[in-house]
C-alpha cells in the first residue's frame, strides 16, 4: 500500500517559488492500476519522481507498506528503487551503447541475479512486450522509438517490482502495440498484485485504470472512472 501525505515540492526560480506538487495526499491499495492526467507542466513527472524516490520532497511524506521514504538513507532508497520500483520514462532513458537485452538485464544485475537467469528473463520480457527476437541483441540506437519504448517497459518489469511508475508508456506505440501494453500492465496488476501508476494523455489507457487522478496547478483531485466498456470514447 502506498500512502502519500501532504506532499509538497517547491523550486525557486529567481524571486519566485514554484510548487509543482502542492499538498498532495492519496492512498493506493496494492494491485491498483491508477492514472494521473493533466496538462503539460502541471507537475505530473515531479510527482512520479517523488513517489519513485528519485527526488526528495520539500515537505510531506511517502510511505510504502508503512515504511516512510523520508527517513530512509540514500543507500536504502537505492535499494528501494532497485527492488520495489519499475520506471518507464517518457524519453525511455535506455543506455544507448547497450543492446536491448543488456538494457533489460541491468536492473537484474544490480539486484545480484545470476547471468544465465537474467538473460533468460530478459528475453522472456522482451517477447512479452512484442519485440521480435532478432532485435534483442540490437543496440538501442538502432531501434525505432516504439521499439525503444517496449524495451523500457521490459526493463521496468525486470525485478518484478511492487510499484511501476510509467510516464506516457504508450506514447510512442501504435494502437495495436499500445493496447497490448495496456493488457500487459492490467495483467500485472491482476496476476502479480503490482501497483501501477501511469501518467498519460491516452484516453483509452486512462479510462482503463481502476482510479484516475487529475493534477492541476500542483493539486491532485480524483476523478470518477467511467464504465471501462465505454471509456475509450470519453474525453480525458
Amino acid at each position, binding site marked *: 500500500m502506498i500512502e502519500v501525505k501532504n506532499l509538497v515540492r517547491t523550486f525557486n526560480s529567481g524571486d519566485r517559488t514554484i510548487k509543482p506538487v502542492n499538498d498532495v495526499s492519496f492512498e493506493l491499495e496494492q494491485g491498483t492500476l491508477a492514472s494521473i492526467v493533466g496538462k503539460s507542466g502541471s507537475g505530473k*513527472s515531479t510527482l512520479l*519522481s517523488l513517489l*519513485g*524516490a*528519485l*527526488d526528495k520532497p520539500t515537505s510531506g511524506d511517502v510511505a510504502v507498506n508503512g515504511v516512510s521514504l523520508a527517513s530512509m538513507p540514500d*543507500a536504502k532508497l*537505492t*535499494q528501494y*528503487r*532497485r*527492488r520495489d*520500483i519499475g*520506471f518507464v*520514462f*517518457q*524519453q525511455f*532513458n*535506455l*543506455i544507448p*551503447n*547497450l543492446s536491448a537485452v*543488456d538494457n533489460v*538485464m*541491468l*536492473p537484474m*544485475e*544490480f*539486484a545480484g541475479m545470476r*547471468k544465465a537467469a537474467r538473460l533468460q528473463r530478459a528475453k522472456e520480457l522482451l517477447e512479452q512486450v512484442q519485440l521480435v527476437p532478432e532485435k534483442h541483441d540490437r543496440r538501442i540506437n538502432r531501434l525505432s522509438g516504439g521499439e525503444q519504448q517496449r524495451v523500457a517497459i521490459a*526493463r521496468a518489469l525486470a*525485478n518484478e517490482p511492487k510499484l511501476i511508475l510509467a*510516464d506516457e508508456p504508450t506514447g510512442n506505440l501504435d494502437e495495436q502495440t499500445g493496447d497490448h501494453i495496456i493488457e500487459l500492465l492490467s495483467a500485472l496488476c491482476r496476476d502479480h498484485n503490482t501497483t501501477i501508476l501511469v501518467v498519460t494523455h491516452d484516453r483509452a489507457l486512462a479510462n482503463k485504470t481502476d482510479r484516475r487522478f487529475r493534477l492541476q496547478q500542483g493539486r491532485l483531485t480524483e476523478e470518477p472512472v467511467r464504465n471501462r466498456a465505454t471509456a475509450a470514447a470519453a474525453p480525458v
Partner: protein
Amino acid sequence: MSVLARSVGNAFRNKVRTAAVVAVLAVAIGLALAMLVANQAVGAKVQELNASVGTVLTVNPAGGQGFEGGGEPLTSEQAATATAVPNVSAVVGISSLRLRNAAEAAAQAAGGQTGPGGGQGVSGGQAAATLTTSLTAAVDAGTLGNRNQAANGTTGTTATQPVRSLPITATGIGAEVDTTGKALAITEGNGLGDYNAESTNALLGTTLAEKNGLAVGSTFTINDQTYTVAGLFDAGTTFGNNAVYVTLPTAQTLAGLPGELSSMIVTVDSLEHVEAAKAALQEALGTDKADVTQGQNLETAVSSLDSVKNISYIAFIAALGTAGLIILLIMVMLVRERRREIGVLKAIGAPNRTIGLQFVLEALVLAALGSAAGAVIAAFASSGIASALISTNTTTTAAATTGRGMPGGTGFPGGGPGGPFGGASQLLTSVTASASPDVIVAGIAAVFGVATIGALVPALLTARIRPIEVLRGE
C-alpha cells in the same frame, strides 16, 4: 553484461576520441617508461662502477708527466707500506712494458730510425721498457699514430716513413685485474696461474689473439723467450684488447728491473673509507715519492651519471603525473557528459560503488591501451632518450676528460681511448638502456596506480550525481 564488459564497451563508445586519448596517453606513458628504463640503466651502471672501481686508488710515482716519464719508480717496499695502511684491503703492483714487433723493430734499426715511436704515453715514473715480440699489434697506427711516430722517432728527415704499427701494451700484474683494478673478463682459457718469475703464462686480448691467429695453448715470444697463451680476455675496447698480461715477477724480470713497480692499484675496504685511506696512503708513501689518486675521470663520470639518473627520475615522475592528469581530466569530462546516464543507472537501482567501479575500469582500459602503445614507444625510444640525456648532461665532462692518461703517467693513450679510465665519455657510452621486462612491468604497474588514483576522483564525483538527473530535459 558485467561491469567490466560494460566498461570496455564504454571505452570504445567514441572510437575517434578513444584513439586520440590513447595516443596522448601513449606518448606520456612511453616517455615515463623510457625515463624509467634510462634511470634503471644509469643506476645499474653507477652501481657497477662503484662496486668495481669506486674503492680503488691508484698510486703513481710522484713527478711523472705521462708522455715524458720522470720521477722515481715505486718499489715493492712501498707496496708493503701501502698494504699496512688502515682500511687497505689489497695492493696490486703493476709493471708496464711496451712490446714492438721484432721484425719491424729490426727494419727500423736497419733504416737508422730511433726511439720508441708509437704515439703512446709512457709510464710516468719510469720510461716503460721496450721489448720485442713475435706478436703484431692489432691496432693500426692510423694518421695520428704515424704522425706522432714521425715526430717522436725521426729527426732531420722528410723522407717517406714506412708504415708502422702501434706498440703492444704488456702489463705485469700481481693479480688478475686490469690497470683500473677491475677483474679481467677472461673469455677463454684460464688465469695466469702461479705468480712467480718462472711463469711463462700470458693472457692476450681477444683482438690481439685474433690478429696473430693465436688461441689458448698457442705460443709467442717476448725477447726470444716463449710464452704460452693461458687465456683470452675482453677489455671491451679495441685498444684495451691490444694488450698482453703476464705475472708481475715475469714483467720485472723481462724489464730487468726487479722490485720496481710502474704503479700500484690499492683497494680500500669500503666507499666510506676511501677518503681517509687516500690521505693515510699519501702520508705513508710521502708526497715527494708518490701521487695517490682516486680516478678523477671516474668520479666525474659517476657524478654525471648521477645527474642523469636524477633527471630521468624526475622526468619519469612528471610523465607519470601527466598520464594521471590526462586520465583525470578525460574521466571528469566523461562523467559530466554522462550525468544523465548515471542518473538512469541510479534510478534503476545501481549502487554508487558499481557506477564508480565502472568508471575506474574504463579509465584502466584506456591506461592499458596507452601502456601497450607506450611500451612500444619506450622500446624504440628509451635508448635514444637515454643517450640524448647523457650526451646533453656530460658534454663538458667528456670534453674535459677524453684522451687523458692517468695522472702520474701510467696511461698508454696513443691513438686509443686515453688511459685506463678512458675518459667519462667511454664510461657513459657503455650504458645500455635496454627495456627489461621487470622495468616495464614496474613502470606499467606505476601507470595503473596513477590511473586508478586519477579515475577515483571522477568516480567519486558520480556518487554526488542525484538520480533526479534522469528527468533533466523531460
